[in-house]
C-alpha cells in the first residue's frame, strides 16, 4: 500500500471522518478546513503516525504547516518514514 493511501486511512480513523477522508486528494486542505482537526485531534494523528510507521516524531520536527494539506502531510510522512 502506498504512503498516501496509508495516510488517508490513518486520518479517517484518527479523526473519525467515517469514510470521508478516503476521498481526499493531495490538494485537499486540512488545517482550517476540517472541523474535526483541532489542537486535541492533531495529537491523535501524530500518535497514529508514530504507531503505524514505527517512528518517533520530535516536537520540533512538526508544526501546523505540516498539516496544510493532505499533500504536505504525505510528504512529511514520506520523509520521516522512508519506505
Amino acid at each position, binding site marked *: 500500500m502506498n504512503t498516501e493511501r496509508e495516510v488517508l486511512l490513518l486520518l479517517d480513523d484518527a479523526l473519525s471522518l467515517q469514510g470521508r477522508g478516503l476521498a481526499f486528494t493531495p490538494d485537499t486542505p486540512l488545517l482550517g478546513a476540517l472541523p474535526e482537526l483541532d*489542537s486535541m485531534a492533531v495529537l491523535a494523528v501524530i500518535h497514529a503516525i508514530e504507531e503505524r510507521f514505527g517512528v518517533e516524531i520530535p516536537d520540533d520536527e512538526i*508544526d501546523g504547516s505540516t498539516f496544510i494539506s493532505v499533500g504536505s502531510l504525505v510528504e512529511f510522512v514520506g520523509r520521516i518514514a522512508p519506505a
Partner: protein
Amino acid sequence: MSAHLLHHLIEASATRTPEAPALTSGQETLNYGDLADRCSLFASAMMHLGLGRGERVALYLDKRPAFVEAAFGTAAAGGAFVPVNPLLKGEQVGHILGDCNARVLVTSPERLPLLAPVLAACHDLRHVILAGPVPAQTPEGLTVHAWQSLAGAPPQAGHRVIDGDMAAILYTSGSTGRPKGVVLSHRNMVTGARSVAEYLGNHPGDTLLAALPLSFDAGFSQLTTAFHAGARTVLLNYLLPRDVVNAVTRERVTGLTAVPPLWIQLAGLEWPASVGEHLRYLANTGGRMPREILQNLRTKLPRTRPYLMYGLTEAFRATYLPPEEADRRPDSIGKAIPNAEVLVLREDGTECAPHEPGELVQRGPLVAQGYWNDAAKTAERFRPLPSGVGGRERGLVLPEIAVYSGDTVRRDEEGFLYFVGRRDEMIKSSGYRISPTEVEEILYATGLVGEAAAFGQPHPALGEAVICVVTPPLGGHVDGAALLAECRRRMPVYMVPARIEIQTGPLPRNPNGKIDRKALAAECQPPQP
C-alpha cells in the same frame, strides 16, 4: 471621522493611514485602504442580494481575510454577523443557523458538504457565499455564489443604522442546554474596543496575534482593538502550541491574548530570547491563570507585561488586573475596565461588605442586548438594577438593565476583586461550597500535574464528592499517592478529592479552548460511597 459603528473602526484607520498594514494571513498582508475597500465590496454584495436591515449573515470559516471582510462588510451593510466556531460539526452549525434565522451563510467549499444534511431545515436561508470555487453539486433551494462573483456588485451604501442597532450575535455555551446567542450592538463592540485598547495602550505600531477563535468575544476583540488603534492583526489557525510561538517570533507580535489551557502549553515551551524585544504584553482571559504558570511565563518572558482579565460574553470584558499589581495580588481579577461598573451584590440586591462573597453584576454600555429570541433565559441574566446601588441614583425611574454574571466574587478594602467560583459549578460537599478553580489552583501549585480539572459528583453521604482529573507534568508521570498527600497537606479536609483520576493526553477542551469540566464529569463514574 469618529467611529461609532463597528465598520467605522476600519474606515477611520483607512482614512488616517491607508498604507498601514491591517491584516496578515500566511504570506499575505492587507493594508487598511485595501481592507476597507474589500469590506465595502462585501457590503455592496449583501445589498445587491437584498439583505435587510438587521438580517443575519452566518460565518462558518477558519481565520482568513474573507472572514474579516464578511464580518465588517455585513455590519457596513446594516446586517448582523454571526461568527460560528469552525470546530463545530454540522448538526451544531445547523442549530445556530436556524436559531438566528440566518439569511446568508459564508463558508468554504470543503465545509459546505458537511452542512448539506442540515441546510434544508434552515427556512430563512437564501444565499451561500463560498470562499473558493463553487462545486458542481450545491444544496437545493439555495443560491450559491463564488467569492469572486461578489466583485460584480455595483457599489451601494448600506442601510442606515444607529449604534444601538444589533451588529453581531455570538453563540456561547451555557451550563445547560443548547448554545445561546448573545446579541451585541455596534455600541457594545465599539465601546469594548475603545476600553480594552485604552488599558492595553494599543497603538499603530502594535501587532496582535489572533490565536483564539473569532467566534469567542475575546478572540474577535483582537480585531476590534487593533483596528481601533490602527494596529496590525495576524490571523493564525494553530494546531500545535509551537505554532503560536513561531508566529509570535516570525511576525514580531507585540500583544498575545490566550486562555489558561493554551498558556499552560505555552509555558512548557522554549521561547526565543528575541521575543522579549517585541512582545509587550500577554493577556489571559477565559479563566484563572494558575499562579505557577504565570510565574513560569514571567521567568521566560521577563520584559512582557501580564494582564489578567475577566469577562463574560454577555458584557464583553468586565475587569482587568494592571501588570504592576500582578506580583502583589496574582489571584485578583482586578478592577472594572474603563467605562464599565462592576458591583458585588447580595441575593437581596444590596451591596456586599469587603470580603463578603456575592454575585458579580456589571452595568454600563458594554452590557449586551440579551439572548436572541429567548425571553426566559434573557430574564434570568439581564435584570433591572435596584435603585441606589453603584452609580444608579434613587430618583431615576426608567429601569436600567444590568448583567447578573452568575459568578461569585469578593472585593477587598482597596476595591480589588477576587473570583470565587461559577455559581452553577460550585461543588457542594459536606455542607461547604467549594470552588473548583481553588482546588485546581492547589493541584497546579504542587507542581506534580500538567493539567487539572475539578468537579463535583453526587455522593450519598457528602451531597457531592470532589473529583479531580489530572495529566502528567511535562516529561514526567503522576505519582497519585504523592499528589493526594500534598492535597491533604494543603487543603482543608472537606476539599480533599475523593478520587483523583489520571489521564495521559491533554484534557478535553470546549470550543473556546477552555478545559471542559462538564465533559469530564460526564465521563467519570460516580464515586463509591
